[in-house]
């Protein structure tokens, strides 16, 4: 009995450890497999974006810049994409970091005389009514396909009704008359540059403890040692970006997919200059 109960305890302990490890992994904590996550993204981008871009460039060279029907131009490829920008954090998973974005404000002042502040009250009143009536009603919410077929049989005018009840969470195509926005062509509010700041914790802690050793009070030592500094800017080599529009990111993605040196630099910055690797 004693032996068996000890076995149970052991098993429970192993299970506990496994659960704890899995929890820690899930909850963030010490970084693991981040390099392989980044490599995975690079591979995906390589398969998708880079090949498309290469084809378009080769095609444009061949046709002296003229577009051929069966291939898209670089600009057309870029128009299909939007960029999800993911920032480094303050929590020291890596070094703490923050980012300053800069955007085009040229002509903003000249434009200011035409600014109008429209109230949003009416819009939200209408929106709340729609949300209350449409999404809180029980009617037709959880119909199965079989239910729908049954209704289809019973109501000959069902098709018309279905059309009226189109899925409102699928957008209509952008009207062709609307010009591309600040992410695609340079204009007011186009992002132009970013500055990435980071706190080099190793250095900061070393400075702090050595100031304490030299007799400084904790408050003064902390104030003198703690600082953020520029880690890099988007204009810096080895992959300077002339602006931060979709085209610039797609060009960079394409470079990162093929140039190992640039990729290594990108990884160093992605992990906030901690020197992190998976092993």
């Amino acid at each position, binding site marked *: 009995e004693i032996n068996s109960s000890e076995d149970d305890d052991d098993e429970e302990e192993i299970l506990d450890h496994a659960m*704890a490890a899995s*929890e820690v992994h899930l*909850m*963030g*904590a*010490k970084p693991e497999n981040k390099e392989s*996550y*980044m490599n995975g993204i690079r591979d995906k981008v390589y398969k*998708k974006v880079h090949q498309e871009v290469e084809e378009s460039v080769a095609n444009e060279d061949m046709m002296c810049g003229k577009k051929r029907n069966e291939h898209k131009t670089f600009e057309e490829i870029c*128009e*299909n*994409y*939007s*960029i*999800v*920008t*993911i*920032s480094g*954090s*303050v*929590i*020291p*998973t890596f070094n703490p*970091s*923050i*980012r300053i*974005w800069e*955007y085009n404000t040229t002509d*903003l002042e000249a434009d200011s005389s035409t*600014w109008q502040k429209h109230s*949003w009250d009416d819009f*939200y009143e209408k929106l709340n009514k729609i*949300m209350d009536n449409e*999404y809180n009603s029980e009617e037709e*919410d959880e119909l199965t396909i079989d239910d729908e077929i049954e209704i289809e049989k019973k109501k000959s005018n069902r098709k018309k009704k279905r059309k009226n009840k189109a*899925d409102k*969470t*699928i*957008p*209509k*195509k*952008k009207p062709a008359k*609307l*010009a591309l*926005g*600040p*992410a695609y062509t340079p204009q007011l*509010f186009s*992002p132009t540059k970013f500055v990435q700041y980071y706190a080099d*914790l190793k250095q900061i*802690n070393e400075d702090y*403890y050595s100031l304490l050793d030299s007799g400084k009070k904790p408050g003064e030592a*902390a104030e003198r040692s703690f600082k*953020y500094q520029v880690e890099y800017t988007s204009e810096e080599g080895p992959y300077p970006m002339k602006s931060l529009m*979709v085209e610039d*990111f797609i060009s960079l*993605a394409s470079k990162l997919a093929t140039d190992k040196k640039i990729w290594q630099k990108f990884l160093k*910055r992605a*992990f906030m200059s*901690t020197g992190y690797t998976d092993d």
Partner: protein
Amino acid sequence: NLETGQEKKLHGRFLHITDMHPDAFYKEGSSVEYSCHSGKPPPHKKNFASKFGDATKGCDAPEELIDYTLEWIKDNLRDKIDFVIWTGDNVRHDNDRKIPRTEMQILEMNDQISRKMQRVFSDPNSDNPRDFDVTLIPSIGNNDVFPHNMFALGPTLQTREYYRIWDNVIPQEQQRTFYRGACFVTEVIPGRLAVLSINTLYLYKANPLVDNCDSKKQPGYQLLAWLGSVLEELRQRDVKVWLSGHVPPIEKNFADSCYDKFTLWTHEYRDIIIGGLYGHMNIDHFIPVDGEASRKAIESEV
């Protein structure tokens, strides 16, 4: 400011800050192996919790790191920026089973951090707590909710609490909308430029209450309905817009139909959307997402 007539200098800059994860239980000198909460590592091991935290060791942020960070921002950046996009996770992780997180602790820490942020960026010469020199746009993170990752459609205690915590920075006419979905819009340059605070937890795979974005009862469906209405209104007003939220809208994170629909909205409103800023992953990177591929995926499903 078209309401008060006050003029404000625009700098053409803004700050993105994310994932602070302050830990009130962080103890300098304790063991990294105990989440920097307790224990003492042997002298030959350098596994002790440093004053300002240690990169890559796995502990959350000491509160002093957050305080000094905000102080540094106040001294060096505050007067050079127009607005702050602040994408959530303002509490510690649930990584110490001896001190499990409670809903009250999560809300209290969020309240504390919100007050600190407001103190840094508010207008010191105004008695109105809604007057800010630098506009704040917070959004909710997967660790800001209890239980971790799980967040239901509102109105709930949590959506009401977050409205209370961010009361000064959420436009008042959006109170009901916020109670329902914990998302809102702020015009950072009135009539010209806006930022959306998107509650990405309603689209997030790891939220047990999210199955898809196809059924009207799903939180993600309702969030997308809100997103569509707001984007259309902004288009009609010729206002350009930044999207912001905690969990990045990538395939790895979002339920399939939520990912495709969200990506398609960003694609079809490319006349006004400038970009999207997110946190959660702790890594500085970007991911291009293909709107046309999402349209095809949705059409093939239909």
